[in-house]
């Protein structure tokens, strides 16, 4: 259906006619609802939106959005999304991927889409498991994780998606939890960022890895286990906001209690434009630290698709309008009479 005269879309206008088929209780539902809400809120149009995914439970996402969409192949969504942007830089392109899709089979493509800074919003649904293939360990599963493919415990070292994104020169890096109130805000900021925005979303796989992020979702204790980042503000956390992050003499972060000789001003302040700070934050993991949530890093940079378009425009300006006959006639010509 075309947009109404007034052109005010509601979240439900972004819902396609397909039944959503994730398991009951899957974290993907919450994310889907937030994305629909944000698309409506920021005035994105359905016809100008393209959702591209790889393969995995999470990658079913595009079917449920009343936008253009492609459920592509395992791991390669960044390359399809890049192609869409090369062809039409004006489209709003979102990419949906999983921890296996984005970091295992598609790790290579993720690096390159980020470093090129295509204007694409990348949501990585991290459930620390392979959901669709029924529960093998993934690149983000914790060491020792017992699954069907690791009955004696995984011996792979897990990686931090955010550290990878930062090392890959991403211009926007953030994290949120599927059921958390801040997810919407993080997605909104990602959507408004001009450049590749990488958002890791902690997502509960209700069936194969339930409660993997209980520490970050449990009503009573989560505020003690996550650190909500605010640009320019001291890093305070805890249910009673009585704890903070402090840098010791060796520039190592420490959890400290406020009051006892340490004031808010002594704490580490968040600066979204500080690359090394954001990397340091990406290394802070539960249970040693509260896990940071929100926008870790954000800078302004030129987007690949615009730079390429500019080269085309500049070349045409310098050499004149495309003239195929002139192209054919380039080189040494000889005439046979």
């Amino acid at each position, binding site marked *: 259906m075309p947009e109404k005269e007034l052109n005010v879309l509601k979240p439900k206008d972004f819902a396609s006619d397909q039944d959503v088929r994730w398991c009951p209780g899957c974290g993907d539902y919450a994310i889907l609802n937030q994305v629909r809400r944000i698309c409506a809120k920021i005035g994105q149009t359905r016809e100008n939106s393209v959702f591209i995914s790889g393969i995995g439970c999470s990658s079913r996402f595009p079917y449920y959005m009343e936008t253009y969409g492609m459920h592509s192949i395992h791991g390669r969504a960044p390359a399809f999304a890049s192609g869409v942007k*090369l062809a039409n830089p004006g489209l709003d392109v979102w990419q949906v991927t999983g921890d296996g899709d984005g970091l295992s089979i598609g790790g290579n493509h993720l690096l390159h889409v980020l470093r090129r800074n295509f204007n694409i919003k990348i949501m990585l649904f991290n459930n620390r498991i392979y959901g669709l293939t029924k529960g093998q360990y993934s690149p983000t599963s914790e060491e020792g994780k017992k699954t069907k493919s690791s009955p004696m415990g995984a011996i792979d070292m897990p990686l931090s998606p955010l550290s990878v994104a930062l090392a890959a020169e991403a211009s926007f890096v953030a994290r949120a939890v599927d059921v958390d109130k801040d997810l919407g805000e993080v997605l909104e900021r990602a959507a408004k960022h001009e450049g590749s925005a990488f958002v890791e979303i902690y997502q509960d796989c209700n069936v194969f890895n339930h409660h993997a992020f209980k520490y970050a979702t449990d009503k009573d204790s989560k505020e003690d286990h996550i650190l909500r980042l605010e640009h320019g503000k001291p890093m305070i956390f805890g249910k009673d906001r009585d704890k903070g992050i402090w840098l010791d003499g060796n520039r190592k972060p420490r959890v400290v209690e406020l009051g006892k000789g340490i004031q808010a001003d002594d704490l580490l302040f968040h600066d979204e434009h500080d690359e090394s700070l954001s990397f340091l934050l990406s290394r802070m993991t539960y249970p040693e630290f509260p896990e940071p949530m929100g926008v870790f890093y954000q800078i302004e940079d030129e987007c690949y698709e615009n730079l390429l378009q500019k080269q085309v425009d500049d070349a045409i300006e310098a050499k004149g309008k495309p003239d195929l006959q002139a192209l054919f006639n380039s080189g*040494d010509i000889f005439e046979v009479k």
Partner: protein
Amino acid sequence: MAASTNTEVPQSNKPTEELASAVIRFAGDSGDGMQLAGTQFTDTSAIFGNDVATLPDFPAEIRAPAGTVAGVSGFQINFAASDIHTPGDEVNALIAMNPAAFKAHIDDVQQGGIIVVNEDEFTKINLRKAGYPEGYNPLDDEKYDNKYRITKVPITRLNEETLADTGMSAKDIGRCKNMFALGLIYWLYQRPIDTTVSYLEDYFGKKKKLPAVAEANVKTLKAGYFFGETTEMFPVRFHVARAPVAPGKYRKIGGNEATAMGLATAAQLASKTLVYCSYPITPASDVLHSLAAMRNFGVKTFQAEDEIAAMCAAIGVSFAGQLGVTGTSGPGLALKSEALNLALMMELPVVIINVQRGGPSTGLPTKTEQSDLLQALYGRNGDSPAVVIAAQSPGDCFNTAIEASRLAIKYMTPVIMLTDGYIGNGAEPWRIPNVEDLEPIEISHPVFDEKVEWHPYQRDENLSRPWAIPGTKGLQHRIGGLEKAHITGNVSYDFENHQFMTDLRRMKVEKVADSIPDLEVHGEASGDLLLVGWGGTYGSILTATDRAQAAGKKVSCIHLRHLNPMPKNLKSILGNFKQILVPELNTGQLRMILRGKFLVDARGLNKIAGKPFLVEEIEDAIKIVLNGELGDREYLTPRLHKVDINDQDIDLAKFGINAVRL
């Protein structure tokens, strides 16, 4: 332009021998500038009005040790006063810049052929590097003197003397010696030097801003030319007259360049932006290079992180409504297969170019082969019908690239275009087309109409689905690799639907046959033997057929451009001949298909030696088949440039393998 470049050579008092054609080969160390000498000779001959065909031969290793056989780089040119189709079987004249080049190429020279060697480089050290035994110098070997007309020229020293007062370093002077050799060969074959002079002035003088280098190269080029005239070393000169080609404007074109131009042209004919996504690989990289230089034609190029990404990006481009193309060589096509299948399932237009090289695996990157036919046709999971077409000569790459794009768009399907290292790197004169004569590529993107029901997988009369593109209001839809329900395009696990969709995809590709012309038989429509070829072997098969026909034999040939689907009249043509021979640079891939599809007793001539066919090899095979000597043997293989029915079985003992338990 024609007037100035066709300058007749200065008067000479040496006798001239008139030739119908000549095959010359420049060979030297990869640092000796042989490719430049070769391309310059080609340009000059093409502009002079000869028909030309070339065969560059690069060393496999970029930095093979200097002076070794592995580091030899060659460039062969066949130029003629008549229409020719191959770079020639035997070399009439070899220019060998060092002992390794001599060693690597001497056996290809015809008996009595001319050999010009740079004798300065035949030093003890260089002879050793070339792998000659201690104390041996082939230039002192009578067996060569009896067989060839060898002229020893101190090219290194003469070049140094010519440039002694330029103030250039010894190294820079040394790098000019290819131009001395070229000048000498220009003189020998009575070619004008002005094309090369203006090239040197443009390239070194203007582009590289090195006027001194340009001047030095021109100086030594001329010195080489005049050396031929003044010295008594060469008793005769040769002349190859202009070829009587169809009137029109011509230029020289290389295969990869023609592919690039064809793609850029197709995009304009379709009013689309060409986005060429590729990952560097020999011998396909030049297509990327050519297109990267065409930004001013609106062309976008994207050097992806690997071949998979290149394929996927090209599909993303088509999804978003522009012309997505990717190009690669064999190993890269293997990587693309999963994504190619997605394009097939999503029914999006995309063109995949495969400049074939020697395989399997990394194989012979710089050598040619036709062994990716089955990969192109079948190298994917599931029942996966793709359109496959092949170019037959360097200039033909232009037309084939346009046709590939046209079919992809008309039928909403991936199209694989096969070329190979031989035609990709080869060059020939190309009659410049008139842009107005090229047929536009029609596209209609659907728009939303409230009164009309629309679905992403509805079909038109070609069984093609609509190309609805993001940005179009009201046509939002989702596609992917899961099986689609007929019409709606929703995910469907219904088994009857899967049977139906599988049949539909096959029938759609079969329908492409409606858009391809009937095959034309070269020669009589029936006879004793039909040669069936495809791709880059066109020139040699055609020439061998012509020669057989001239000898009164009832031999005809056909050449397949369309490998899937095949032209509708192929079956009836096959039925009109007593025997069928399929020459291919693989172990019999087309042969297998013809046998399987048409139940004909096709036999093969199969060469997998990294090189194109010699015409003579095909002639030999024709004789064997016509003489009825083939028996039950399904195929023949040339060995050392000869096809001998008695020399077909591999003698393992010859390779030191004595006991094989089977």
